[in-house]
């Protein structure tokens, strides 16, 4: 397990990362999401031990990255934003060098290099100079380097930038496969990517954590209710009556005629309503002889959730505040503040 505690980074007087804490569990892919300039790369550089932190602590499988860097770094595979490749080296030479850096025994080196090259499909370019490779290949060579020695913890900083759509899917699948025996932190500013690959996400903006949660929970908490899309053939009025009377339906948002007796309904469901409501509607419609050509629930737009998250006032420091907004609870913090203030007053008097 990797724990990040109260990590802070100042660039001069400019605070790039502000007191962030989260953990990465074993066999988990954690998405690290934020707009450009949010502090993603800075954070990852600190976790990887490249940049020293201004304050805070990073522990990687029990080793503190500042106090025992060599031990901690043995468990890390890091792919920075710009793949760290030497243009004048051949791919195989480069990987062999990296294997040496990572202290892989020379007997195992050859097999290990063959393994990562196969995994990333760069065998066919192994004798080319890296400077002659395309961006996508360079990225994959950089990725191969991170996988050498099978480190338990992988830090991938925007691994799919610059790849063509096919390669993006390949790389995503590789990352998903890695989950079996690795922990991965994976940064991106592309939402669909994060939701396709990650178990949990950390949303960060301007150095502050905005949320740490699973994608589903985020959707539920911030997206509100689901929308049901139904396309039917048959009597429009009858269908809308049935739909409106089913439990869990809040309202029919729109009905579009699509010709030939086809109608498309957009139905807003009540919060918490889901598959049961959908099944009930389906059963009722069929019972009344209305043909259903299409029915599906539409998830709330994650993009909107993301935009909403990062635009929230920067006073919110984390998930707790977000939860407070959703389910108002007593705030013990203010009480303790008052107490401490009272204590201070006492002390002053004394």
């Amino acid at each position: 397990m990797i724990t990040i505690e109260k990590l802070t980074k100042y660039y001069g007087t400019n605070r790039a990362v502000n007191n962030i804490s989260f953990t990465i569990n074993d066999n988990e892919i954690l998405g690290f999401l934020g707009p450009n300039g949010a502090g993603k790369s800075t954070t990852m550089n600190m976790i990887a031990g490249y940049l020293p932190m201004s304050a805070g602590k990073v522990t990687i499988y029990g080793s503190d990255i500042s106090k025992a860097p060599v031990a901690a770094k043995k468990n890390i595979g890091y792919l920075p934003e710009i793949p760290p490749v030497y243009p004048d080296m051949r791919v195989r030479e480069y990987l062999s060098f990296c294997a040496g850096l990572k202290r892989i025994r020379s007997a195992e080196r050859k097999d290990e290099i063959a393994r990562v090259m196969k995994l990333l499909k760069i065998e066919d370019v192994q004798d080319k100079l890296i400077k002659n490779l395309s961006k996508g290949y360079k990225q994959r060579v950089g990725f191969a380097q991170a996988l050498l020695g099978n480190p338990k913890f992988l830090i991938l900083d925007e691994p799919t930038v610059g790849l063509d759509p096919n390669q993006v899917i390949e790389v995503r699948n590789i990352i998903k496969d890695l989950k079996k025996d690795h922990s991965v932190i994976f940064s991106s500013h592309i939402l669909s990517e994060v939701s396709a690959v990650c178990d949990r996400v950390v949303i960060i903006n301007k150095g502050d954590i905005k949320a740490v949660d699973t994608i589903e929970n985020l959707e539920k908490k911030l997206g509100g209710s689901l929308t049901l899309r139904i396309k039917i053939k048959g009597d429009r009025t009858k269908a809308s009556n049935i739909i409106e009377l089913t439990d869990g339906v809040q309202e029919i948002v729109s009905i579009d005629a699509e010709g030939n007796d086809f109608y498309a309904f957009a139905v807003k469901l009540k919060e918490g309503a889901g598959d049961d409501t959908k099944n009930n509607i389906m059963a009722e419609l069929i019972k009344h002889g209305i043909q259903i050509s299409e029915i599906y629930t539409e998830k709330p737009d994650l993009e909107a959730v993301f935009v909403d998250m990062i635009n929230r006032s920067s006073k919110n420091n984390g998930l707790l505040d977000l939860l407070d907004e959703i389910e108002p609870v007593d705030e013990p913090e203010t009480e303790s503040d008052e107490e401490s203030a009272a204590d201070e007053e006492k002390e002053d008097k004394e």
Partner: protein
Amino acid sequence: MFSVYKKELQSFFYTPFAYVITALFIFLFTYMFNAALGDLKQPILQFTFPDIFYNVIFFFIFLIPILTMRTFADERKFGTEVLLMTSPVSVIQIILGKYLANLTVFLFMIAGSALFPIFTYLHGTLIMNQLICAYIGFFAWGAMFIAIGMLISSFTENSIIAAVIGEIIMFAFMFIDDFSRTDFIMQFPKLQSVLYAFAAQPRFAYFSQGFIRLSDLVFFASTIIICLSWNYIAIERRRWKRG
């Protein structure tokens, strides 16, 4: 450390770099050797290798910064510094690996110059002890300037700037000797002796006369240690300061 060393050597020897710089060095040496032969006068046909080395050093200051300019500057330029810093190797190991690789290329260059003594040996007599001392002196001298050149390379990410600044500093080291003997400096004997202590050239002159003085060895060794330590501090400092 060994993998860094090996990689650096590869980057020198798998590209034309090491060969071009060695060729240039041998060219310079040939020129001086020919000049020495041209100056031969009857009745004693005698010339000294130490003198040739002494002359070559002047041109050599252009070569050392070219050798060392890329050491750290290119790592920063290509973003590969991240790779080194996030690998389980310490900064000291990285510096030593790179330093040894540069020294190896330097030895390769010196080895090229051994052609001329061999040639002389075949056609005449060679005073071995003087020659060996000259080689030791030349090596110590080069080792020191490589350490300085690497240090400068760690200050910038532009290798050309690293080379130019390196040249300037090496010039300064060359001329501090003359400078310390100007009339102006002569007025302050204490300052003069301090300046003179930093002059590398007279130290080389002792070597070339066949003297191995402990003080000279200490001078070269301590300068190397200081430069490499400073190199370590410079790299760490930039990581901490960065932004």
